[in-house]
C-alpha cells in the first residue's frame, strides 16, 4: 500500500488570509440618468464619509466619464460599501485590482 500524505493546507490558508486583508478590491460607481447629482454627493458623504469636495469630485467623474472608483478596499469592506451604495439606489460593481 502506497503512503499518502495529507496536503499541506498551510500555504492555502496563508493565501486566503492574505487575500482577505489585501486592499485590492475597487468599488466602481456607474453613471445613470435618474439619480440626482446632489443626491449622489450626499450618498458618497454618508456611506464613504467623504468630505463634500471629494464627494463632488467623484460625482463629476461618474457624470463625465461614466464611472468612478470611489474606494479600494479589502473584499469584505468593498462588499459592504457595494451593498450600502446599492441600497441608496446607485449602480455599483466591484473589480479586483492588481
Amino acid at each position, binding site marked *: 500500500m502506497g503512503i499518502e500524505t495529507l496536503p499541506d493546507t498551510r500555504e492555502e490558508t496563508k493565501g486566503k488570509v492574505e487575500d482577505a486583508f489585501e486592499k485590492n478590491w475597487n468599488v466602481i460607481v456607474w453613471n445613470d*440618468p*435618474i439619480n*440626482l447629482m446632489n443626491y449622489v454627493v450626499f450618498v458618497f458623504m454618508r456611506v464613504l464619509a467623504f468630505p463634500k469636495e471629494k464627494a463632488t469630485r467623484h460625482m463629476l467623474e461618474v457624470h463625465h466619464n461614466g464611472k468612478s472608483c470611489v474606494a479600494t478596499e479589502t473584499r469584505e469592506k468593498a462588499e459592504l460599501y*457595494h*451593498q450600502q451604495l446599492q441600497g441608496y*439606489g446607485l449602480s455599483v460593481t466591484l*473589480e479586483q485590482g492588481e
Partner: protein
Amino acid sequence: MVVRREPGAVAFSFSLLERKVLERALTTLLENYQVNPAEIDERAAAVWYSSAGCRSAGMSTEETADWMKQLYALRFGRIAILRECLEQLGAGPEAASGMRVSVQQADALMTALNDHRLLLAAHHDIGEAEMSVRSWAALARLPARQQTTLFEIEFFAYLIDELLRLLSDPASLEGQS
C-alpha cells in the same frame, strides 16, 4: 409644496394634487419593499436588486442570495417611516395636508423617494434621452404616459432637493425655511 426646517425635524405642506401623488408613491413603495427580490417584477429587480456587482465580485450563488437578503432588509427597514408618513398625509383635511419627519427619518424618506424615481423610470422606459428633455415641444413629442411620469420624477427630484438643502443648511437649524 412648502418645506421648512423645524428643530430636529422637517415639515411639509402639500396641495391636494401633491398629496395624492405622494400617497400613491408611498403606497407603491410599501407594496414593493415587502416583495422578496426573487419575486419582484423584472424592472424593479433591475434597478433595486441588480446582481451585476455580485457577478463582478465573483460571488457564489449562495453568497449572492445572502447578499440580496441583506439588501432586501435595508429596504424593508424603511417601511415603518413610510407607513408613518402615509398616516400623517391621510390625517389632514382633504384640500391640503402636512407631514413632519425627524431629521433621522428624513434620510430614509429621501432614499425611498429616490427608489420611487428609479422605479418609475424603469417601468415607463425613461432613460437618458427622456431625462434630457428641456423644452415643451420635445416633451409633447413623448407618449402621454412618459410625459406624466417625467412630471412625477421631477416632482420627487424637487422634494429630494429641498430635503438635501434643508438638511445641509446650518441656517435652517433655527427653523427658518
